[in-house]
């Protein structure tokens, strides 16, 4: 096994382009588990830990977007300016594993692995994030919805690196909530991110761990926008709140597995989405 440790984005892109089949490693919190279980036997590895350019974030000049480097550790998203601009991302980041894992794990890793249980992914989905992919000679942007193709499958082409994710700064409310079987360090058995853009009067609801990939509840979003005025804070009537959760659950596609049951997961996303909608209008 050869391990390349490029020290700059330029070198990393060159390495990835030169060896398109190389395994990319960022924090290693997914990959090393797979290696330990012998599920994956990489021969060539490109480690991005030393690429400082992708371990940062910038707010665009127009103050409309945040561009987050794919290697920025979750630890850096929990507090400070990022947490103020993207509270749902901060909340999701805080639920990732243990402090050690949060010091290593990143959005790039979540996107690269593309597990439906990736904690940051519902936030990227609800906020309609755009993913920036580069090779030594090309650069393209792709909607996160198009990027996430299926269970642990994404639209990254061989030789491309996930360089950053662009998330909008919205005027409104956003929150994230997660259900696990213990009170810390737990893989979600259901998660939900809810974003209300008060300027546009729109809502985004994205679910984790209840389908092959992150599920965006478009029908429910449109339905709710017709029921209430999302531009203003308003108390949602109990019958609407109930129907909202029911509709969210209906859009989920969970399965039974050793972590939970499909029935519970449907119940959990219904409950979480109702709670988040309530919080959006009371906090």
């Amino acid at each position: 096994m050869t391990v390349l440790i490029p020290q700059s984005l330029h070198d990393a892109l060159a390495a990835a382009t030169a060896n398109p089949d190389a395994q990319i490693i960022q924090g290693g919190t997914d990959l090393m588990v797979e290696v330990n279980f012998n599920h994956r036997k990489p021969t060539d590895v490109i480690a991005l830990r030393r690429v400082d350019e992708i371990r940062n974030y910038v707010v665009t000049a127009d103050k409309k977007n945040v561009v987050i480097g794919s290697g920025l550790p979750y630890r850096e998203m929990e507090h400070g300016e990022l947490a103020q601009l993207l509270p749902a991302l901060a909340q999701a980041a805080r639920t990732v594993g243990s402090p050690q894992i949060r010091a290593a794990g990143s959005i790039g890793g979540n996107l690269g692995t593309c597990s439906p249980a990736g904690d940051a992914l519902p936030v990227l989905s609800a906020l309609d994030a755009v993913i920036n992919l580069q090779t030594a000679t090309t650069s393209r942007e792709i909607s996160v919805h198009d990027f996430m193709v299926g269970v642990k499958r994404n639209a990254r082409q061989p030789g491309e690196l996930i360089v950053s994710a662009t998330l909008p700064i919205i005027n409104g409310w956003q929150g994230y909530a997660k259900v696990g079987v213990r009170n810390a360090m737990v893989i979600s058995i259901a998660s939900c991110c809810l974003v209300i853009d008060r300027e546009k009067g729109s809502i985004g609801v994205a679910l984790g761990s209840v389908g092959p990939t992150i599920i965006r509840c478009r029908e429910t979003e449109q339905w709710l926008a017709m029921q209430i005025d999302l531009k203003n804070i308003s108390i949602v009537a109990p019958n609407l709140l109930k129907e909202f959760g029911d509709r969210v659950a209906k859009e989920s596609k969970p399965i039974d597995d050793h972590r939970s049951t499909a029935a519970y997961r449907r119940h959990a996303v219904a409950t979480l989405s109702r709670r988040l909608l309530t919080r959006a209008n009371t906090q």
Partner: protein
Amino acid sequence: MSNATKTSIHRDVLGASALRPDGAAKVSGKFEFSSDLHAEHMLWGATLRSPHPFARIISIDLSAAYKIDGVEAIITAQDVPGKKTYGLISSDQPVFASEIVRYVGEPVAAVAADHPETCRRALAAIKVNYEVLTPITDAELAMLPSTTQIHPDGNLFRHQRIITGDQNLQGEIIVEATYEMGMQDQAFLGLEAALAIPDSGGAGVEMFVATQWLHEDQKQIAACLDLPLEKIRITLGGVGGAFGAREDISLQVHCALLALRTSRPIKMQYGREESFYGHVHRHPAKIWIRHHATRTGVIQRIESRMVFDGGAYASTSAAVLINGVTHIQGPYKCLNATVDGYAVRTNNPPCGAMRGFGVVQACYAHESQMDKLAVACGLSPVEIRLINAMVTGDKLITGQVVESVAPVERCIRETDAIEMPAPLARNANALEIVGGSGLTSLPHNIVRGVGWGVSIKNLMYSESFDDFATARCQLQNGVVNLKFATVEVGQGFVVLAPQIARSVLGVDEVIIDPVDTRIGSAGSTSASRQTWMSGGAVDGACRLVRQRLFEHVGTKHNIDPLRLVIEDTDVVDMLGDFRISVIEASTGVFIDETFEHHHRPTEELDENGQGNCHVAFAFVAHRAVVDVDVELGLVKVIQIATAQDVGRVLNPIAALGQIEGGIAQGLGLAVMEEIVLDNGKMRNPSFTDYLLPTALDAPQVIAVMIEEPEPQAPLGAKGIGEPPCISVTPAIAAAIRNATGRDLPRVPIRPQDICL
């Protein structure tokens, strides 16, 4: 977080919170665990395991594996020179499966190679042709006479009934239910590992193993290798937790065989996944139970049918079952009983010893019943338990009279007196609320519940087994040297043994010899027995040395040795002015004494389950306070209050450690820890999916230690390792029932059990 009594004793004698000598090394990563062992020119060993729960082996082809560079040896059943099977009680488990595999993970072959990766490739290259059979994974089905016999020994490990008193009595109040418990793993952190170094010429082997009982390992390894006992010399390797999972042989025989075959040192160690396959687990159980009581709540009769799924091989199933049936009455008076217990063979993973050993299952059932009984009689959980609380002198359903100190009422009352936690604040921090950083719940989603559990647990081995312990004490120039084969698995004997020597002999410097088979057996570090048994042996050896020291001083100074006592660090004449330091008194002499401690004999149970089968008993009460998000079925245990019958506290901080650790383990069983099985296959053999409580799941523990010294116990102290994990599980379950109003007849309680 705990409240402990601080003791200010200036020497690390009995009663002081002496610190573990291995503590700093363990928390700083310097402690050498068995997995850190290394020898020059060693090879690595690895095990090939069955992927099927039940299959016939048609053929094994090793040729491709042998062609891999670096592979030095591959062994299968035909390479076992001695006994082909092993086992703690009945020897039914093959060293390697030869014709039939009976569970997923059963060893089929082992390889020795120059590198773990070479081993992995060699295992992948071994071609085993299986004829897959339909596994029998339901214990009730396995028991039926028409069901396929999984093993020549049959599908029933043991049936035991208890028949006593009036078999027809019907109470004014009758409550009944069926309770179930899932399969819990011991989940020790230090994985299985051993190093075997062959003697030149293959005449014997030197082993370093993380185990619970050196001499039992030695006996079983020697039989399989067809070597005399003394040719298997075992030294304890660093152990990182055991909880029962190291009582059975895992990799010991494989490792020794490979060493003898290759004439090279062999290192074997399991990873976490293999560890789940490589050791026994807690028995899943199904218990039907019916209580008859008077209208005022006095228990009159118990009926129960208990089925323990022992998995593919016997291990300690027969003994676990006996603990289950003999403890089903709980710490309560009961004169009439009709109990049937079955330990059954299935194609599930083998089950054996785990902290609580059969009593955990029984306690979950009887404590759940006590709450039902309380409701039926219009009493509180505390009242129903006080009304029925057992006392010293009561006769158990086995006919055995409880001679142990039995402060059941005090355990309950002192637990009840512990202050309840403050209500959940409306503005509580997320980490204090169910779901933690997941922001799952807000305070208004939470309902608080309170529940009780009280237990009785036998100490030491039962049913006529003489599990003695041996210790040697040497005194020279004021320094004591102790030797014993007592395995340190984390329980703290390494700190207790020197405390005993300091108290008895007035010395400060105590050296512990390597723990190995160069002295007699200490028995297993299990059954809450080492403080009592090995503590008794060390105490006995030290007392013999003290007597010799007094004789020496008496002769030299012309004083009757009977007048001499140890006072602090001096030898003192009780009736005169003579005083000499122990250091001075022992200078130039060498005193060497060995002592075996035996507990009093016990009896087998007869066909009606009657007999004095247990040595002694310990009691404990737990009160659990939980917060439940009822809508999502999520639980956070807020506080466990406990009063435990410990006999005498020998080391407060160590005792508290046992109590807190046991509570965490019992909490795990209540709400999250379960090996999920699907037709005999484990679905979650990793710490990603087998969830253990984290620091955020651990409750506040407020512990009261009830000190009523046990006359039978050499140091007055009862075993304290198991009781903390037994009744805490039903206490938490009861608290969740209290919060939700649900029946919840099964643990672990899953979110969907609460909210769907």
